[in-house]
């Protein structure tokens, strides 16, 4: 039997040492009436058969569509060396580094990851990672509720609708007041409406930059208003964009979160991904999840440990800052390896490529009659177009031509049925952009 080392002889010997005759005696604590009424599963397969079969399944999925689909999840370049590193089983077959002396690899990598997240966001401290960008945003919101002891949450509708649905889901059983504010006509957060809502019951203002429509903003003014009312400001970000855009720290944000998938993780049909969180120093002890800190051993040698653990569920149980036990250590490793391979100058180049190609795509598509830019504000690498008819139909037609042209915003926003969100990464070539333009023009 594969993956079980004991032979029948081993089993007989071990049972003998226990004074037992059969394996079944080991399960005598399970009463007869609690035995399975059914356990109907297929017989095991050989590795060769499993390989053939899963390859067949993989081949049923599209691998050759040209990708202009984003919405928070992007088709970025991943350097080959990354997979070499994360394939080292000393990393991926380890568990949470409870024993620091034999887990320095994981611990130091997480410390380096935390450092890189702080440098990207210009924040004081980061945790060891969370499940994904959406759960990170939820955790940030709960942090703000705890810190301010207030129950009202203001969310700009420029925040990913997927994440907003998650926030609603998690708070369904809690007495929180949710106020969602539609974006202004220019696609950015509606300052006036937000200002009206900010009050002494408001725990936090949640924003996203660039927002779901791709609009770039400087949110400093809103951060100041919110903080004046004693609320925290939470910003969901796109880490690649932080290679060029004003940072959460520069805009006085209290808690920055985001999805780290673009930092070297495959799209992988929705996961595993990587939630990151970074905060101002006064909120460190309110953070959820694991945190790695530097310390020394008795000889003064540098080493790393899990620290500030009294926040966590295994110690504080029902009073913990969160129920989180695992982080996404291997994904955090991917992120720090990606940022090392790409490097300081490389990240700048990635952002320049994304930004320039998005501009070029926009220019090309606006040349098509009937295609309009929806919001007249600066973009990074994603933008919203208004088409002459239903965007979902058009996207379907373009898929048949081998192009994932974008995301139909009507799926989540009323009165945006004709709008399409288009993302352009450094991987798209001028030629592919031309193909998109020609294909779109052809179907319109």
């Amino acid at each position, binding site marked *: 039997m594969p993956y079980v080392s004991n032979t029948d002889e081993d089993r007989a010997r071990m049972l003998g040492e226990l004074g037992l005759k059969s394996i079944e005696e080991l399960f005598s604590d399970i009463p007869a009436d609690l035995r399975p009424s059914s356990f109907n599963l297929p017989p095991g397969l050989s590795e060769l058969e499993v390989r053939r079969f899963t390859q067949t399944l993989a081949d049923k999925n599209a691998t050759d569509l040209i990708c202009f689909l984003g919405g928070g999840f992007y088709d970025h370049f991943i350097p080959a060396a990354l997979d070499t590193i994360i394939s080292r089983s000393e990393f991926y077959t380890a568990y949470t580094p409870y024993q620091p002396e034999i887990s320095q690899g994981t611990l130091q990598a997480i410390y380096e990851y935390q450092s890189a997240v702080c440098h990207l966001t210009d924040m004081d401290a980061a945790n060891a990672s969370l499940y994904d960008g959406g759960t990170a945003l939820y955790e940030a919101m709960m942090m703000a509720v705890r810190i301010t002891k207030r129950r009202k949450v203001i969310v700009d509708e420029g925040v990913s609708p997927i994440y907003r649905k998650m926030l609603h889901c998690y708070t369904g059983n809690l007495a929180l007041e949710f106020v969602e504010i539609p974006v202004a006509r220019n696609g950015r957060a509606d300052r006036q409406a937000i200002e009206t809502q900010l009050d002494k019951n408001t725990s936090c203002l949640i924003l996203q930059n660039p927002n779901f429509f791709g609009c770039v903003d400087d949110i400093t003014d809103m951060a100041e208003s919110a903080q004046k009312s004693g609320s925290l400001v939470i910003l969901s970000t796109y880490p690649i964009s932080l290679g060029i855009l004003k940072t959460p720290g520069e805009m006085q944000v209290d808690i920055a979160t985001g999805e780290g998938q673009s930092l070297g993780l495959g799209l992988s049909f929705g996961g595993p991904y990587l939630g990151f969180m970074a905060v101002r120093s006064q909120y460190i*002890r309110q953070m959820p999840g694991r945190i790695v800190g530097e310390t020394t051993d008795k000889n003064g040698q540098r080493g790393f440990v899990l620290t500030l*653990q*009294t926040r966590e569920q295994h*110690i*504080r149980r029902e009073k913990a800052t969160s129920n989180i036990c695992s982080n996404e250590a291997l994904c955090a490793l991917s992120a720090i390896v990606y940022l090392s391979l790409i490097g300081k100058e490389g990240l700048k180049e990635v952002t320049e490529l994304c930004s320039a190609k998005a501009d070029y795509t926009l220019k090309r598509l606006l040349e098509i009659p009937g295609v309009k830019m929806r919001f007249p504000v600066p973009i990074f690498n994603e933008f919203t177009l208004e088409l002459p008819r239903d965007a979902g139909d058009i996207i379907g037609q373009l898929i048949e031509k081998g192009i994932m042209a974008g995301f139909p915003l009507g799926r989540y926003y009323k009165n945006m049925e004709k709008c399409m969100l288009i993302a352009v990464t450094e991987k798209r070539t001028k030629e592919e952009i031309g193909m998109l333009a020609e294909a779109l023009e052809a179907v319109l």
Partner: protein
Amino acid sequence: MYPTDLKYTVTHEWAGIEEKTGIVTVGIGEYAVKQLSDIVFLELPAVGDKLKKGEPFGAIESVKAVFDLNSPVTGEVVEVNQALSDNLDLLQTDPYGQCWMVRIKAENQEEIQALMNAGDYEDFIKKGQGKH
């Protein structure tokens, strides 16, 4: 053994009252400090916070344990010993005098009288009834 001018709770906080003003000074005793060994963090309330008798006003933490600090009286926090957070080792040597944590303006001074005196508290410890 334990300072006789103070009162004690079952969760090992000590309380000293200035009867004239009704201001109660609160800290934690030697027994709790010993249980914790290496103290790494102290979480204290803010001036103006309203406290209820028996409910937590803060927490004291070692690397792998955390104990709530429970208020011996109902009242409002009037002073907080912020300096203590930077000198946690002091708790090991003298948890009473300069290691006070908060001063509370008590609503009802009788609540203090209901606490254990030094002798009762010593018996309580001897019987091993420590809740921590």
